[in-house]
């Protein structure tokens, strides 16, 4: 603030300065009890405002805490989120893998809906039963029993959004339980149609 403006400010008389800080509509004209009523109104207004701010802060904190808990809580059993991130494979990565691997091609298994598989699936992949059903897990176990535990396996489903897929988590867990050490899961964020077929990656129909 310049010297000139400072001088102007201190020369303003007290009532005028009071009127400068009054909240419109909350205080009476300065005069008898004017200052007291102003303080009273300010106090009432402040309490209400403080309550609102406190309520907002509590709400914000609780929302944040819930989000934080969801962030760090372990994924529920059976969810695709239970698969370690290091074991996820992006579609582009699988394509490269299929193009570069000559000798030991991965075994690609669809562990979701057969109706989806029959419409379109990754060429060379096999249908292994729905991972969410006990019968599907049994089918998977029978198919995998005789295989080397070091074999590279790629599981995929794509029935629905990743966070809703009921099939991949149980199938992945079963293979790990059987001792397979090189199991990957194809990460399809939305579904097989949107994240694989629509992107021009190869598909074929049939059982």
């Amino acid at each position, binding site marked *: 603030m310049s010297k000139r403006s400072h001088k102007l400010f201190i020369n303003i008389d007290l009532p005028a300065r009071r009127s400068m800080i009054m909240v419109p509509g909350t205080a009476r004209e300065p005069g008898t009890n004017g200052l007291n009523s102003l303080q009273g109104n300010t106090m009432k207004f402040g309490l209400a405002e403080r309550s609102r701010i406190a309520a907002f802060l509590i709400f914000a904190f609780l929302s944040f805490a819930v989000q934080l808990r969801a962030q760090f809580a372990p994924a529920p059993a059976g969810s695709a989120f239970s698969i370690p991130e290091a074991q996820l*494979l992006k579609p582009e990565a699988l394509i490269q893998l299929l193009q570069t691997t000559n000798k030991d091609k991965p075994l690609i298994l669809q562990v979701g809906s057969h109706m989806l598989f029959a419409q379109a699936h990754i060429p060379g992949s096999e249908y292994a039963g729905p991972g969410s059903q006990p019968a599907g897990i049994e089918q998977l176990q029978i198919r995998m029993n005789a295989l080397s535990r070091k074999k590279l396996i790629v599981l995929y489903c794509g029935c629905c959004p990743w966070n809703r897929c009921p099939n991949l988590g149980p199938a992945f867990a079963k293979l790990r339980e059987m001792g397979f050490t090189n199991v990957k899961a194809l990460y399809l*964020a939305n579904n097989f149609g949107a994240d694989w077929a629509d992107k021009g990656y190869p598909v074929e129909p049939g059982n």
Partner: protein
Amino acid sequence: MNQATNEAWRRGVSGIPKAIGNAPCILRRSFAVKLLLGLCVGVSAAQSPVATTSFLHKQAPQFVRTDFENRKLDLRAYRGKVVLLDFWATWCASCQIEMPRFVAWQSQYGPRGLQIIGISMDDDPALARKLYKKMKLNYPVAMGDERLGQLYGGVLGLPLTYLIDSQGNVQARFRGEADLNSIEEKFKTLLRP
């Protein structure tokens, strides 16, 4: 966390061709970023209706089935009504979230010409029938198969809903976890006043 946010952070922490990175620390640090991304772009990116080029404003593929009440379900018979054709399955959690809303819409907008039709893409019809009863669906539901799926361009992920106008033309396709309010707004414009 919705799918779009998921995709966004996965893009952010992993490279190609290596498998998606195992970076829990980065994930924790990026929580706020994910939250913001989810708020800003998540809903709009994942839930906007996408109309297929091949079907938009063209005749919806016709089919005839037998519904769960053993009645003939002929899509052509609904000409003159606005049809919401919903592909669903019992293993699709998102589909089941939508169902109560569909039931309410059928009651509310049925008199104005809305007809919802459900097609189950389950492998086991018994499971579909059980859910049909449990959810008290008030619209016809029939089993689908791979042939019907391919007829509609491939039902390669659920939920999937087609909006068909009273002339039998496809007006929109809603894929994935769609914003139900957007669907409602869209079909309301086609209904009788």
